[in-house]
């Protein structure tokens, strides 16, 4: 996150982090989530799902703050976000998915085409 001046309580405030789960076979490629994600975490994937639509992929996984807006705006029940527990979200970059996170979370780089 960029600040023009570092807030005085930046060490105490924990910004929530999230993981985006995409159910690509439900997606119809409308682009709402991509357009309205406040952190620009998503982009259109070059690949197709089985119906021929381009589902979104997560281009900036570290920027997701679990605001759930993709989940809220999606008309197709095809995307949602999960909270990364606070203890783990302090890390600048998550090297790999720790065991506590539900195993069915999908990282956008692993779509099957």
């Amino acid at each position, binding site marked *: 996150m960029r600040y023009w001046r570092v807030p005085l309580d930046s060490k105490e405030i924990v910004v929530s982090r999230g993981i985006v789960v995409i159910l690509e*076979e439900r997606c119809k490629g409308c*682009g*709402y989530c991509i357009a309205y994600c406040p952190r620009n975490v998503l982009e259109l994937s070059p690949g197709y799902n089985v119906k021929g639509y381009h589902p979104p992929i997560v281009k900036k996984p570290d920027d997701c703050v679990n605001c759930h807006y993709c989940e*809220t705006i999606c*008309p197709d*029940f095809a995307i949602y976000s999960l909270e990364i527990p606070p203890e783990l979200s302090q890390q600048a970059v998550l090297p790999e998915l720790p065991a506590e996170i539900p*195993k069915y979370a999908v990282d956008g780089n692993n779509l099957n085409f």
Partner: protein
Amino acid sequence: MEKVKTRPDHPLDALLRTDRIPHIWCPGCGIGTAFSACMVAMQASGIDLNKTVMVSGIGCSGRGAGYTRLDSYHTTHGRAIPFATGMKLANPQLNVVVFSGDGDLFAIGGNHFIHAARRNMDITVVCVNNLIYGMTGGQAAATTPCMAKTTTTPRGNPDQPFSLPLLAFASGATYVARWTILHTRDLTKSIEEALNRRGFSFIEVLAPCPTGYGRKNKEKSLDTLKIYQERTIIKNGAHPMDAVMDFGNSITLGKFIDQDRPTFSDNYDKTCRPQFA
């Protein structure tokens, strides 16, 4: 990274007939979002979902009833509201939600709408207003803006549209709100309030129809959402007379009316069967 489950569950899957998803709505159709908001509101409101029924009419929005796992009734064109009236009066413990479209509720169903509002029937009506008759291919509706192109007004719609909140208010609705699918959180909150209150609650949701309305009027669904983002203004408590909807200029959103008035059942119990009170 390993994928253990082949199909992860969406948080709303418990309320959906997942064997029928993906649904029939077009890519970019706003009904899905309105329906999703309705489901979230039902969960968040704390009402007994076993006693909640969704009644719909005919049209794209009317297909919503087919996708929820609640008791749902997909009735005839325009007649969702009297059907819902019968259900509510027969079993007052039911939470009856009517989820249908603008053509279904206000053109063919207009008469039923105004009378249910007049009676202050204790039901919640969510009207997805996409300004068109979508299911049948994009004909003009009672809410289609003047000069818009549709298949039955190929040279521009000569008609003026209704103002739905004004109509609802004039008929006696006690909760009137208008939102868009972009204002999803406000919409969800409104539906939640409507579910938890007694009386006739009406919520209009503006939604894009990229296929029926959008193609003829050169509006992709993201263009419509942009209009919702840039040309809407929220005026909670505004009088429905001032809740203008001018797509070229300004669209007023908000919760306009939230009053209390005895419902039909309250009055019926008082006048006709006080001995059972």
